[in-house]
C-alpha cells in the first residue's frame, strides 16, 4: 500500500507507529516529525537511573543509553527532528511546521504526547525544574551537584521517583502535595499511604495536605512558602504537577481536544478521515473497561495503541474493513522507589475499594499484593516486591472485560 504517512511526535508512540505501519503492510514513504532533536528515547529512566548516573553530563552519552532500538523495517523512514508542527488542515491533509514548510499526507498519526505542566507562580526562573525530556533531566542533573536541599512539588510517580533518586544522592528532599497522602489518585490512600510511610522511614520528608503558594528567592529559588504560612528552604524545586497535552497544532479542525484527542476504539480521530492517534495523547474507549474514553499515561500504551492504530490506518487507506475484535489493551505500569518495585496491571485508579490480598502494608519490601475493585469487580492490581514469575497470572486476571 503506497501513500505518504506523516507521524507527528518522535517518541515511543511515533516510533512504534512507524514500525507497526510497516508490519501492517504499508510500504509507502513515512516521515516522522519531532520537536526534540534526539532520536526516540526511553523516558522512564529520566527520573531514575539518569539522575543517579555518576558519569559526565555529555548528552550524547546519556542519550545513547536511552535510545530505542529501531527495527530494520523503518531504515528508510525520514526523521525531521528539531521541528515542530504548528498547524494542520485535516481536510486539505497538510501539516505546517515551524520552519515554514508544509507536509502533505495521505495518512496522519498523532503522537505528540504530553509536556510537563508548570506552576503559574511568580519568582525566579533559576532553580525551577520539570522532568519530561532528556534536556530537562540534564538540567536537573547539573543542578543537583550544587545543592543540598530540594523540594519536589507533586507526590505522584514522577515526583516520588525523583524525590527517591535525589534522596539517594544525599540531598535533603521534601515532597509537597495538596492531597492528604502520596499517590492518592493513582493508588488510593491505603497503598499510597503505606508507600509514603516507607519513603518517610527511609528519610524522604513529606508535607501533604498543603500546597505551595509562592517561591522565595530573588535571583534563584531559595525555598517555597506553603499555604499554612510555613516555608521550606530548597536549593532547587522540581515541579511534578502533571502534564498538558500537545494538541495546539490540531486546533481549528473541529476535533474534541478537551483532553488529548478523542478517538474511537480503533484509534481513529473522531471527525476526520485517515487520522489516528497513539500513546499518551489518545483518548480512546478501552473495551476492557466499558465505553468511557480515557487517556492512559503508561509506557505500555504507545506500543499497544500503535499496533492497533497502524492496522486501522492501513485498512482505511486501502478502503478495507478493519479487524472486528474490539481493542482491549491491558494497562500496565511499573515504578521504582528506593528498594520497592511496583508492578500494576489494569487501572487501580478506577477502583472504589482496595484490598490487601497478601503481605503486610507495614512491611512493603517483603512483598505485598493489593487488588482494586469497582462495584465488586476487579479493575486493577498492584504487586510490590513480588517475584516476576507471578506477573503472568496477575495480568491474565484482565483477559476478560471487567465491566
Amino acid at each position: 500500500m503506497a501513500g505518504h504517512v506523516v507521524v507527528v511526535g518522535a517518541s515511543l508512540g511515533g516510533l512504534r507507529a512507524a514500525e507497526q505501519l510497516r508490519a501492517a503492510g504499508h510500504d509507502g514513504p513515512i516521515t516522522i516529525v519531532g520537536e526534540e532533536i534526539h532520536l526516540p528515547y526511553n523516558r522512564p529512566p529520566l527520573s531514575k537511573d539518569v539522575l543517579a548516573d555518576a558519569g559526565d553530563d555529555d548528552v550524547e552519552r546519556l542519550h545513547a543509553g536511552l535510545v530505542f532500538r529501531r527495527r530494520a523495517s523503518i531504515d528508510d523512514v525520514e526523521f525531521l527532528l528539531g521541528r515542530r508542527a504548528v498547524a494542520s488542515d485535516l481536510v486539505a491533509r497538510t501539516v505546517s511546521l515551524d520552519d515554514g514548510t508544509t507536509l502533505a499526507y495521505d495518512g496522519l498519526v498523532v503522537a505528540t504526547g504530553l509536556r510537563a505542566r508548570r506552576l503559574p507562580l511568580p519568582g525566579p526562573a533559576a532553580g525551577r525544574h520539570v522532568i519530561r525530556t532528556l534536556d530537562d533531566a540534564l538540567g536537573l542533573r547539573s543542578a543537583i551537584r550544587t545543592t543540598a536541599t530540594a523540594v519536589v512539588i507533586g507526590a505522584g510517580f514522577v515526583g516520588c521517583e525523583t524525590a527517591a533518586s535525589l534522596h539517594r544522592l544525599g540531598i535533603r528532599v521534601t515532597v509537597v502535595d495538596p492531597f492528604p497522602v502520596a499517590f492518592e489518585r493513582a493508588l488510593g490512600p491505603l497503598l499510597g499511604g503505606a508507600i509514603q510511610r516507607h519513603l518517610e522511614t527511609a528519610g524522604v520528608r513529606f508535607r501533604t495536605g498543603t500546597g505551595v503558594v509562592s517561591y522565595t528567592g530573588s535571583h534563584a529559588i531559595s525555598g517555597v512558602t506553603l499555604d499554612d504560612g510555613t516555608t521550606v528552604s530548597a536549593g532547587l524545586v522540581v515541579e511534578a504537577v502533571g502534564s498538558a497535552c500537545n494538541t495546539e497544532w490540531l486546533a481549528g479542525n473541529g476535533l474534541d481536544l478537551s483532553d488529548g484527542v478523542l478517538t474511537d476504539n480503533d484509534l481513529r480521530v473522531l471527525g476526520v478521515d485517515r487520522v489516528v492517534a497513539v500513546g499518551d495523547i489518545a483518548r480512546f474507549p478501552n473495551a476492557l473497561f466499558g465505553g468511557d474514553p480515557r487517556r492512559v499515561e503508561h509506557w505500555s500504551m504507545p506500543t499497544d495503541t500503535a499496533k492497533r492504530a497502524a492496522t486501522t490506518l492501513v485498512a482505511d487507506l486501502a478502503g478495507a474493513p478493519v479487524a472486528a475484535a474490539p481493542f482491549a489493551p491491558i494497562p500496565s505500569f511499573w515504578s521504582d522507589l528506593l528498594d520497592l518495585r511496583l508492578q500494576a496491571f489494569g487501572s487501580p485508579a478506577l477502583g472504589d475499594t482496595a484490598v490487601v490480598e497478601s503481605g503486610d502494608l507495614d512491611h512493603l519490601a517483603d512483598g505485598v499484593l493489593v487488588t482494586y475493585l469497582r462495584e465488586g469487580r476487579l479493575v486493577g492490581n498492584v504487586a510490590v516486591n513480588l517475584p516476576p514469575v507471578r506477573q503472568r497470572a496477575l495480568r491474565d486476571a484482565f483477559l476478560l472485560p471487567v465491566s
Partner: protein
Amino acid sequence: MKITVDLDKCQDHGQCAIAAPVAFRMNDEGNLEYETTVEDSYLDEVEEAADVCPVQAILIGQA
C-alpha cells in the same frame, strides 16, 4: 534468530516472559533465563518481547 539480553541493563521486569514464553522465563529466584537461539517463526513474539522490555535490554540478531 539469535537473542542477546544485556544483563547489565536487565532489571528482571519479566515483561519479556509474558510476551514470548518460548524464549524468556523467570526462574523461582526472580531472575531471567532465556534461549539464545529460537526458530525464526517466533520472530513476532520475540520482537514484541524486545518492544515491551522497559529497559530495552533485548537485542535480536540474525541466526
